[in-house]
């Protein structure tokens, strides 16, 4: 099957859905089902749009984008299914967002990436507009627009030097023309900042708090789970196959390290459960980009998968919990899980996996990260990750103890059976993969090679 259908079908349905509002939600579900089906049937390769080989726009399907597509589409589908009530007025926006997310993962063209970045960005502004805080969303919009503007500036500088927009051709052209690294520092820095806004990296992430602080389950899972994963994967592809960091790599590392530390410290200090998860998410995305910047593609993808699964569980349950109890102060939520044992179990598994305790998938991921870093002699970074994990462990354990052990009266909340089933399956998945990881590591083995193959073949067929 042609992977362009992954983008074309949601778009077609989005255009159809505005003709009659009644059909919007069924169309969304059909499009999601079709996309999930398509993801598992498309075959690898480079697909041209319009038939202009390397001179037009191409879509690249390799192991990397295939894994990303599977994870993102499945989680997107489950998010919509488990939050069916909130979806109603946003159906068209979600259809466009689905197309944008798939486009970001598939595209092999720098400017096309910018267009999809805008599509995803605008749908994100609209998805977060439901939280009745227009100022926060406005802030997000302004920062997102400036970010993508800076990305565009970097892109055009790169184009003027290399004469191409094809991602697979940039690196070979740089080598061919022998462009010195110092000349590339400015465009790459601009593009890094531009994507950093969306990827929640530190000096550029003041939008996150306002937007996600009061978000419901749908919004927070979409923004912190689906969109964050997509942006991280896109960023990862750029960092590993297009960017030559060279002289700016030190600045980049400092930004990322500060992002991680500040995120964890803020999470540690926070008294609201959603803020804790939010700052933890910021720190995690810093870590993911850090791994990509160091060329550790396989651990980064493992972390991304672990992240989206645990983020789905944590944010869904928190969203339902806050809806039911009308509060997100940790103090007043004491002991909620003693009445909702199943949900509490899933939440606990997810948070323990984030910390990286043995028996859970997170442990395998952290172990993998540390061994890779040690083999590169990156002692400073390994120490940083250990410190960060320690802080993370402290506040998550503190949070779990508060949520399990009741003092006095206990608030209750109701959860749909569907949500229970899905979160439990995901939690069990985290345990199963924590014990038996072989299929995943096997399928990840070939990722770095395949990523480089596209460059070696110079975008030809």
């Amino acid at each position, binding site marked *: 099957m042609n992977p362009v259908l992954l983008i074309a079908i949601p778009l077609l349905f989005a255009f159809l859905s505005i003709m009659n509002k009644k059909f919007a939600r069924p169309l969304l579900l059909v499009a999601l089902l079709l996309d999930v089906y398509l993801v598992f049937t498309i075959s690898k390769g480079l697909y041209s749009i319009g038939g202009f080989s390397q001179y037009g726009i191409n879509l690249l399907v390799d192991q990397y984008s295939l894994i990303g597509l599977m994870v993102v589409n499945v989680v997107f589908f489950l998010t919509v299914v488990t939050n069916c009530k909130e979806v109603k007025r946003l159906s068209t926006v979600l259809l466009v967002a689905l197309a944008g997310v798939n486009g970001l993962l598939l595209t092999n063209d720098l400017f096309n990436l910018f267009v999809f970045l805008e599509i995803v960005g605008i749908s994100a502004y609209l998805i977060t507009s439901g939280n009745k805080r227009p100022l926060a969303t406005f802030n997000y919009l*302004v920062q997102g627009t*400036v970010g993508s503007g800076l990305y565009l500036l970097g892109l*055009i500088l790169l184009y003027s030097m290399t004469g191409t927009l094809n991602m697979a051709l940039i690196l070979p052209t740089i080598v061919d023309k022998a462009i010195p690294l110092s000349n590339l520092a400015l465009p790459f820095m601009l593009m890094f900042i531009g994507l950093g806004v969306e990827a929640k990296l530190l000096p550029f992430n003041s939008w996150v708090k306002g937007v996600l602080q009061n978000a419901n389950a749908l919004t927070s899972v979409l923004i912190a789970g689906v969109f964050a994963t997509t942006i991280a994967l896109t960023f990862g592809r750029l960092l590993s196959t297009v960017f030559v960091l060279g002289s700016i790599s030190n600045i980049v590392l400092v930004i990322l390290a500060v992002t991680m530390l500040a995120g964890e410290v803020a999470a540690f200090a926070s008294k609201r459960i959603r803020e804790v998860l939010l700052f933890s998410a910021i720190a995690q995305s810093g870590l993911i980009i850090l791994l990509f910047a160091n060329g550790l593609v396989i651990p980064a993808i493992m972390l991304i998968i672990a992240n989206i699964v645990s983020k789905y569980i944590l944010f869904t349950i928190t969203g339902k919990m806050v809806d039911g109890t009308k509060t997100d102060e940790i103090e007043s939520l004491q002991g909620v899980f003693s009445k909702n044992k199943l949900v509490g179990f899933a939440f606990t598994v997810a948070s323990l996996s984030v910390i990286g305790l043995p028996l859970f998938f997170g442990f395998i991921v952290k172990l993998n990260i540390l061994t890779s870093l040690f083999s590169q002699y990156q002692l400073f970074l390994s120490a940083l990750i250990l410190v960060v994990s320690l802080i993370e462990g402290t506040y998550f354990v503190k949070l779990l103890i508060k949520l399990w052990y009741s003092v006095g009266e206990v608030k209750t909340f109701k959860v749909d059976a569907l949500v229970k089933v899905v979160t439990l399956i995901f939690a069990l998945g985290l345990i199963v993969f924590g014990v038996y990881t072989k299929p995943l590591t096997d399928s990840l083995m070939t990722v770095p090679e395949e990523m480089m193959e596209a460059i070696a073949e110079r975008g030809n067929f």
Partner: protein
Amino acid sequence: MIQYASIILIMLGLYGLLTNRNVIKIIISLNVFEIGLNLFIISVGYVDGGLAPILTGNSTSVLSFVDPLPHALVLTSIVIGVGTTALGLAFAKKIYAKYGTYEIDEMGVE
């Protein structure tokens, strides 16, 4: 010369974004930023003495044209700019309906 002016325009837009505390003024600064960006993109493809990229009369493609690709990119970016501006203004109207002012400082702590 226009290239330098366009970079100054981008910087002025950023300066406006940093200093202005009025929602509408922020969107205006955003527009200044985008105009600067568009001018810069076009300037990258300019060739001294090049023709506008349209084949007319008895001209052929051997003549030197300016680079048409940045023009196509700018067309896209202008339209995207209108989209975000319209959305930003819609949010501004929402903000006004909620707080009764465009000044962020007068809205109080959220």
